[in-house]
C-alpha cells in the first residue's frame, strides 16, 4: 500500500510521456497538405500587425522572406498564458476557462518547483537552505494552493455553464461532463488534503522528492492523514495519464494548428526541396468513386487531374 502512490505516479508519467510522444508523432507523420493558412500570420514581421503577407510584394519570389520568431512569441505567449482569443471572442467563457487553465499552469509550476527542489536536495543539499529554502517552499505552497483553487473554481464554472447554457448542453456528451467532474473531484480532494493535512505541502514535496530520487520510502503519516495524500496523489496521477488520451491534448495539437496550418505560408519554389515530396503525393492512387472521377484505385492524382474532359 505504501508503494501505491509511487507506482501510480510512475505509471501515470509513463503513460503521459508515451501518449505525448505518440501524439506528436501522429501530427508529424501526416502527409504534407495543401496550403491553408489564415491571416494574420504572426511571423510576417512588419506586416503581421494588420494581417499582411509577403504576397503583397511585387515579384515576391525574388525577395528574401522576412520571418519573425519574436512576432510569433508576441502572439503565442499571451495566447497560452492569458487565452487572449477566448477573452476577445467569448468573454463569459473566458471568466471560467482562464482561471481553470491558469490554475493548471500554477499546479504544473508547483510540481516543477517540487521536482527541482527534490533534485537539488538530493544532489546539492546546501543550495536550497535558509531563506532561499523558505522562499522556495513559500512559492510551492503559493503556486499549489492558488493553482488548485483557481483550477477548481474554473472547472466548477465551466461545468455549470455547460449545464445551464442550452447551446452548450446540447453539444455536450457524457465524456465532456466526466472530464470536468474528474478535475473537480481531483482538485477538490487535493485542496482538502492541503487544508486538512498538508498545509505546507511537505508531504507532497516529500513524495515528489522521493519520486525524482527513486527513494520509495513510505510516507510518514497514519490514518486519514495518510489516506488523503495517497488518494490525492493517485487521482492526480490518473488525471495526468488521462489528459493526453482525450481531446484535452489540444495543447499539443494547438502547436501544429498554428505552425503547420494557420501560419504555414512557406512557398514551394521551383526546384525546391518540396517538389519531390509533392510528386510522390500526386502519384498516389485514388479510389474516389463519383462518375466524374472513377478513381477505382488505378488512377493516380496526376492521372485524374490531367485526363481530358469528355467533349
Amino acid at each position, binding site marked *: 500500500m505504501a508503494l501505491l502512490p509511487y507506482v501510480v505516479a510512475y505509471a501515470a508519467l509513463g503513460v503521459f510521456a508515451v501518449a505525448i510522444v505518440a501524439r506528436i508523432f501522429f501530427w508529424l507523420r*501526416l*502527409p504534407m*497538405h*495543401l496550403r*491553408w*493558412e489564415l*491571416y494574420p*500570420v504572426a511571423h*510576417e514581421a512588419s506586416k503581421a500587425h*494588420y*494581417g*499582411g503577407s509577403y*504576397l*503583397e*510584394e*511585387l*515579384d515576391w*519570389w525574388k525577395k528574401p522572406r522576412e520571418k519573425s520568431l519574436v512576432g510569433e512569441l508576441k502572439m503565442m505567449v499571451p*495566447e497560452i498564458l492569458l*487565452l487572449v*482569443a*477566448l477573452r476577445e*471572442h*467569448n468573454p463569459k*467563457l473566458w471568466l471560467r*476557462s482562464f482561471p481553470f487553465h491558469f490554475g493548471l499552469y500554477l499546479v504544473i509550476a508547483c510540481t516543477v518547483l517540487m521536482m527541482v527542489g527534490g533534485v537539488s536536495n538530493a544532489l546539492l543539499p546546501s543550495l536550497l537552505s535558509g531563506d532561499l529554502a523558505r522562499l522556495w517552499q513559500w512559492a510551492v505552497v503559493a503556486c499549489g494552493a492558488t493553482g488548485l483553487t483557481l483550477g477548481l473554481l474554473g472547472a466548477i464554472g465551466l461545468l455549470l455553464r455547460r449545464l445551464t447554457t442550452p*447551446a*452548450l448542453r*446540447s*453539444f455536450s*456528451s457524457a*465524456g465532456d461532463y466526466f472530464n470536468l467532474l474528474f478535475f473537480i473531484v481531483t482538485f477538490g480532494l487535493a485542496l482538502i488534503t492541503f487544508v486538512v493535512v498538508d498545509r505546507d505541502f511537505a508531504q507532497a514535496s516529500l513524495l515528489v522528492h522521493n519520486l525524482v530520487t527513486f527513494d520509495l520510502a513510505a510516507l510518514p503519516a497514519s490514518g486519514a492523514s495518510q489516506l488523503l495524500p495517497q488518494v490525492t496523489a493517485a487521482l492526480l496521477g490518473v488525471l495526468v495519464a488521462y489528459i493526453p488520451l*482525450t*481531446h484535452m*491534448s*489540444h495543447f499539443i*495539437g*494547438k502547436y501544429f*494548428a498554428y505552425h503547420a496550418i494557420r501560419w504555414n*505560408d512557406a512557398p*514551394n519554389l*521551383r526546384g525546391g526541396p518540396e*517538389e519531390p515530396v*509533392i*510528386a510522390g503525393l*500526386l502519384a*498516389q*492512387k*485514388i*479510389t*474516389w468513386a*463519383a462518375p*466524374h*472521377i472513377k478513381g477505382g484505385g488505378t488512377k493516380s*492524382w496526376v492521372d*485524374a*487531374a*490531367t485526363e481530358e*474532359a469528355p*467533349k
Partner: protein
Amino acid sequence: MKEPTGFKDFSRAVGPLAHVEITDQVPLPPPFDKLEAEPQVKPLSDKAREKYEVLDDTIAVSIPKPATPADEERLVATFLSGLRKLFEPNNNWTFLQPLLMSMEHCAKCHTCSEACPVFMESGENELYRPAYRSEVIRRLYYKYVKQASTLVHGDIDLNWRTVSRLIELAYRCNLCRRCAQTCPIGVDNALLAREIRKIASQEMGIAPKEIHTTGSVLQQKVGSSTGMNSLVVKDNVDFIDEDTSEKIGFEVKTPWDVEGADILLLHNAGEIMAWPENVGAFAAIFNKAGLSWTLSSELAAYDGINYGVWYDDVQYARTLILHAKAAAKLKVKKVVIGECGHANKAYSVIADKVLTGDLNIPRENGMVLLLDILKSGKIKLDPSRNDFPVTLHDPCNLVRLMGIVQPQREILKLIVPPGRFREMEPHGVHNFCCGGGSGFAIMSGHNFGDWRHHFPGRRKFRQILEAFGNEPMDKEHPKYVCAPCSNCKGQIRDIISYYNAWETAGIHYGGLIELVINAMVDAKPGYVDWEWH
C-alpha cells in the same frame, strides 16, 4: 423561429429543421430599418418540397428524396464510403492534417458563433451555428470511422435524412473562415463544410449544378463556365477593346497568345460577360504602362475561375493544371491574376503544393502589380475625378486567406480625394464575406438567391450602410462600393438590386481598376458608369 434542439432532430425529425421569420432578424440601418418593408424569402414551391428533402427555407443542392428503401441505403452507403476515404492519406492527403485537427480538438465552446454572418443574421438560429454541422460530421466520424464510444463523443443516427441534410447544410456556409480566426484551438468549421462537400461530390457525385455541371465541368470542356469558347472570347474582348478605346479616348488592344511575354493575365471570364469595363481597364493600363503581357486562348486559360476550391479537390486540380499548362506553353515569367478572389487563392496559395517543375511559374495578384504601376508615375492621376464616397469590400480570399490587405488601400489613397474613403467595420483580415463566397454568388436555384441575400448578404449590406452612415442616403448622392473580386461584385450587385439600394440610397458598386481609369488624366472623364446595370 424554428430551430433544431439538438442532434437527434437532425436524423429523426420530419420536415424542415429551421425557419427564420423576418421578425427574428435585427433591423438594418436607415433607410432600410423597417423590417416589414424588407423583401422576404420567397417560399419554396410545393413541387420542390415534395421532390427534395428540405432542410430550412431554401434548397441549394436539390437532393431528391430516395424513392425506395434501396435508394435510401445507397445514399447512406456511398456517404459512409466517402466519409472513410476522407481519412485515408492517399485519397485526402490534400487536407488530412487540417481535417483531423478540426475533428479531434473542438472544445464545443461556441467561441466561433458570433463570427458567422449567417448565424448572426438568422437571429442566432441553432441550425446555422458554425459548430453545428461540424459536430454532426464529428459525431459521424467518431461513431462510424473510429468506432469510438458515443458516450465520450456524442451520438447521432445515420440515415438518408442525416446525409441529405448534412450535404445541404454544407451549403449554408460561405467558407469565409472567419470562425476559424476566433478559435483558440485552431478548429476550422469552414474546412469541415468543404470536406462534407467533397464527400458529396467526389464520392456521391452530388453538387449544386451551378458550380459543377455548368461550372467546373463546363469550364474544362468548353473553356469557360460562361460557355465561351476561345473564338467567342476573342470576339468579345475585341469588342471590349473597341468600346474601351472609344470611352477613354486612346486605343486599347489586347494581346493574345504572345509567346515569351513577361506576364500572362488571368481574368475571371465573368468580367468579360458582366463587367467588360474591368477587362478594358486592365488592357488600357497595362498597355499605357508598357508591360509585356498577354491573354491565353488555351482551354480554360482565359477564365481564371476554379470552382473546385469550393467543393472538389479533383476538379480543382484539373482546372489548375489547365491554367498552369497554358502559362508554361507561353513561357511567361509570371502569371498575374485579376480581380477575382477565389481565382487568386486557387492559383496562388492552394496551388503552391501541387505545381512542380515547368508548371511552377510564379503567380502574383493584380492589385500588387497595379500599385507598382501607379507608384512608377507612368499613369498620371487626378483623384478629384473620384469625388464621391467610396468604401472597400475586402474579398475573404484575398485578405484572410492570402494576406493581401494594403495594396488596394494604397491604390485608393492615390485615386480617391482625401476624406472620401471610408473603411467598413470590421475590415481587412477581419472583414465579413460579401455573402456570395464559396459559390453562393452564382447559385440561385429555387429561392436560394433570396436566402443568400437575406442571411450572409444582409451582413455585408449592413456593413455598407454603416460605412455610408454619415452620407445623405438618396440617389442624388452616389456612393461607390469598391469590390475587387468578380464573385463579390456579383453578390454586391445582387444585394443592391434585392434591397433596391441604388434607387433608395444611391449605392453603386464596381471594381478597383475602374476607379483607377476614372482618375486617369490621359483618359476621357466618366469611366465609371453610374447607370444601374
